[in-house]
C-alpha cells in the first residue's frame, strides 16, 4: 500500500499548508492597521488555502474510490466567482462610510459623472 501512503503524505502536506495560510490570514486580519489593509488578508484563506484543501479532498476521495472525484472543484469555481464580488462591495462600503465620516480619502474617479443632474448626489 505504498501508493496510499504517498497519497496520504501529499494530503497531509496540503492540509498543513492550508492551515498555515489560514492562520496567516487571521493574523493579518487581527494585526493590520486599517480597514483597507485588513481587506487583503482574508484573500489568502479564500484563494490558496481553499485551493489546497480542495486538492487534498480530490486526492483523498480519488484514491479511496478509485475514480476521479472532481466534484469538489465546484467549491473553487464558486469561491472564484464570489470572493472578488464580496471584496469589491466591501471596498465600496469602506470608501462610502469613511468618506461620509470625513476621513481624508482620494477623490472618486467618477466625480464628473456623478455631478450630472439625473443622478443622485
Amino acid at each position, binding site marked *: 500500500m505504498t501508493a496510499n501512503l504517498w497519497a496520504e503524505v501529499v494530503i497531509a502536506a496540503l492540509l*498543513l499548508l492550508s492551515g498555515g495560510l*489560514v492562520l496567516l490570514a487571521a493574523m493579518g*486580519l487581527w494585526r493590520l492597521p486599517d480597514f483597507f489593509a485588513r481587506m487583503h488578508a482574508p484573500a489568502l*484563506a479564500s484563494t490558496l488555502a481553499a485551493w489546497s484543501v480542495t486538492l487534498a*479532498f480530490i486526492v483523498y476521495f480519488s484514491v479511496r474510490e478509485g475514480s476521479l472525484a472532481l466534484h469538489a472543484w465546484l*467549491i473553487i469555481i464558486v*469561491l472564484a466567482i464570489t470572493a472578488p464580488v464580496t471584496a469589491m462591495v*466591501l471596498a465600496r*462600503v469602506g470608501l*462610502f462610510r469613511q468618506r461620509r465620516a470625513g476621513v481624508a480619502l482620494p477623490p472618486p474617479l467618477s466625480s464628473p459623472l456623478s455631478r450630472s443632474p439625473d443622478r443622485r448626489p
Partner: protein
Amino acid sequence: MSPILAVAISVTLMLYAIAMVFGLMRLVRGPSAQDRVLALDFMYVVGMLVMLVLAIRFESSMYFEGALLMVLFGFVGSVAMAKFLLRGEAIE
C-alpha cells in the same frame, strides 16, 4: 488512515480553530461595521474549510454539500450586509 494523516488533520483543525478565534476577536472588537462584515466573511470561509477537512476525517463525501451551501450562504450574507451598510437597505 495512517497516523501521518490523522496528526495532520488534528493540527490543521487546531490551526483553523486559532484562526477562527482571531476572526472572532476582530468581529467583537472591530472599530467599524465593515470590519465586522469582513471578519464574518472570513469566518464563513474558514468554516467551509473545516467542513472539507471533516469530510476527509470522517471519510464521508456528504460534507461536500454542506461546504458548498456554506460558500453560497456566506456570499449572500456578506453581500446583503454590505449592501445594507452602503444604502441602509438590503434589497432595493
